[in-house]
């Protein structure tokens, strides 16, 4: 059957070429006598002879075409005779009968071929299993990119994610990440576990654990290092267990969508979920629920330009609030209010990102009133043919009398300048280099430089 299929394909492909070649030949041959006759104005004996030959050629083509049909019909007959369950073919059959049988066999094979194509067309991932994708990275540095107290080689993340196809409206996304802690222990986190219902392009509701929709990086660039052009996230936007100061995950409900308008589109997010708690100096997103019943929430609104010179530009604002307690005795409680904006210029050439966060936190139990802090970064990246060089400046000014930042291990103020580059080895692997200088500005006045290399893959 495979051979037969191949034969048909080849025949189908060659046939138009033959016809066109004959037509071209006829065109040239046909044009010559015209030109010759017109040149003299009288019927030329050689022209008459040529026309006669042309007629003969046409007759020959017709005869050859008929002969090909006849041979194809004969070729089909033995195949039919050997097919299981096929009716026996009489050796004494007339050529006409053979041709008829052959034609019907060809028709049958055409139908089978069509059926195979339909079956292939219907084949989907539903019956070929669920693809498992993921990311991994390893590296070497003068300091560990997350914990500067460590040096040398390190194992980064091994991150798996599943996005099963469930139907027209139901969607699901699960991401499981294994990461190595400062003590070398391997921890497994269910980073995202969200099931959603997509009403249309304008609205999808997710429930579960998701990346908190603020700024750009937190929802666009996730744990998989390969996805990011830079070697690591800005320090203050690291994930919770890596010293981040903004809740990267929320467990709750999230409404998101896009509405086209004015040649671009508005993107919106509204969410609410369990208020985070600070446990052992890190934000905990309370996967199983909260004991105090506190609810946090927020919103993000952005406009993405899709035409003209600003195609690829996105401007947005975001805000969130949450009452966050810690594990001190007695525990502190802070009404965290963060708001700000972001700008992204993401094109085939540029990846420029800026985000700013303004904190207006209210100490609920300690009575130290309101504390204001700021954090932000500016990153410029250029997609050159040889790689993606980038530069980033990060700065945080975090009020240390704010019980929220005081309780967070990563709550110190700093500024960092980083220069780096990404080199894609192939479609699925990349090497990144980064040189960075970090200076802490309040809890300690340490200053350190870093040289980092990372090998990141996707699979």
């Amino acid at each position, binding site marked *: 059957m495979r051979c037969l299929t191949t034969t048909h394909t080849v025949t189908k492909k060659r046939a138009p070429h033959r016809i*066109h070649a004959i037509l071209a030949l006829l065109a040239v041959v046909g044009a010559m006598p*015209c030109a010759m006759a017109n040149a003299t*104005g009288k019927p030329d004996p050689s022209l008459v002879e040529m026309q006669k030959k042309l007629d003969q050629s046409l007759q020959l083509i017709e005869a050859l075409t008929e002969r090909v049909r006849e041979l194809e019909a004969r070729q089909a007959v033995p195949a039919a005779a050997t097919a299981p369950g096929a009716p026996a073919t009489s050796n004494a059959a007339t050529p006409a009968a053979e041709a008829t049988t052959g034609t019907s066999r060809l028709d049958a094979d055409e139908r089978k071929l069509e059926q195979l194509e339909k079956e292939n067309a219907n*084949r989907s991932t539903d019956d070929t299993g669920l693809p498992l994708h993921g990311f991994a990275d390893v590296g070497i540095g003068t300091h560990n990119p997350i914990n500067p107290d460590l040096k040398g080689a390190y194992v980064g993340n091994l991150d798996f994610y599943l996005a099963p196809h469930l139907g027209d409206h139901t969607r699901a996304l699960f991401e499981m990440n294994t990461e190595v802690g400062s003590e070398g222990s391997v921890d497994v986190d269910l980073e995202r576990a969200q099931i959603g219902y997509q009403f249309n392009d304008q609205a999808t509701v997710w429930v579960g654990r998701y990346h908190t929709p603020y700024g750009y990086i937190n929802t666009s660039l996730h744990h998989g290092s390969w*996805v990011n052009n830079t070697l690591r996230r800005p320090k203050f936007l690291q994930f919770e267990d890596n010293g981040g100061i903004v809740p990267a995950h929320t467990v709750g409900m999230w409404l998101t969508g896009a509405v086209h308008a004015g040649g671009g589109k508005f993107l919106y997010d509204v969410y609410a979920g369990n208020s985070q708690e600070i446990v052992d100096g890190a934000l905990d997103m309370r996967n199983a629920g909260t004991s105090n019943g506190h609810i946090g929430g927020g919103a993000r609104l952005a406009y993405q330009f899709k035409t003209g010179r600003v195609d690829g530009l996105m401007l947005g604002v975001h805000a969130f609030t949450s009452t966050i307690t810690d594990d001190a005795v007695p525990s502190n409680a802070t009404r965290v209010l963060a708001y700000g904006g972001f700008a992204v210029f993401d094109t085939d050439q540029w990846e420029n990102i800026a985000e700013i966060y303004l904190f207006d936190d209210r100490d609920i139990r300690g009575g130290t009133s309101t504390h204001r802090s700021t954090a932000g970064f500016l990153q410029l990246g250029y997609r050159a043919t040889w790689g993606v060089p980038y530069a980033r400046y990060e700065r945080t000014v975090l009020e240390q009398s704010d019980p929220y930042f005081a309780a967070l291990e990563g709550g110190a103020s700093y500024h960092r300048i980083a220069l780096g580059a990404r080199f894609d080895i192939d479609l699925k692997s990349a090497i990144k280099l980064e040189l960075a200088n970090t200076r802490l500005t309040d809890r300690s006045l340490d200053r350190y430089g870093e040289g980092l290399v990372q090998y990141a893959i996707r699979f």
Partner: protein
Amino acid sequence: MRFGSDYRSGNRRCIGLAGALVLVASAQVTAADLYVVCNVNVALQPSDVRDVFIGEKSFAGSAHLAPADNLSAQTAFLERVMKVTADRYASLWTKKSFRDGANPPPVKASDAETIAYVRQTPGACSYVQTVPPAGVNTIGKF
């Protein structure tokens, strides 16, 4: 005079005939057209095609869209319609899938397989380089 007129008229006819035949014969060697086709239940604008194939548009009215890539015509499609390289297209889908849980379009091997898929699958959209047959909705020629 009459002879001259016949001469010019005949000459024009012959040149016209030869030219037409040569054009027909050479049509095969020019760049093949690309047709974006959808299932008959899908109504799309040509300007929507890019969004459909990067997962930004999942619905056309009430119809859930099911785009599929056609391996035999993908190079032309990415160049003429999507205006991205194959690497960038793959990268876009990796990020999209990881970010939103969306799945990249399945890949069909040939025009025939693609047409069969588009005909049978509600919401299906794809592209071919042969003139689309009846039974599919041609969105645009690129």
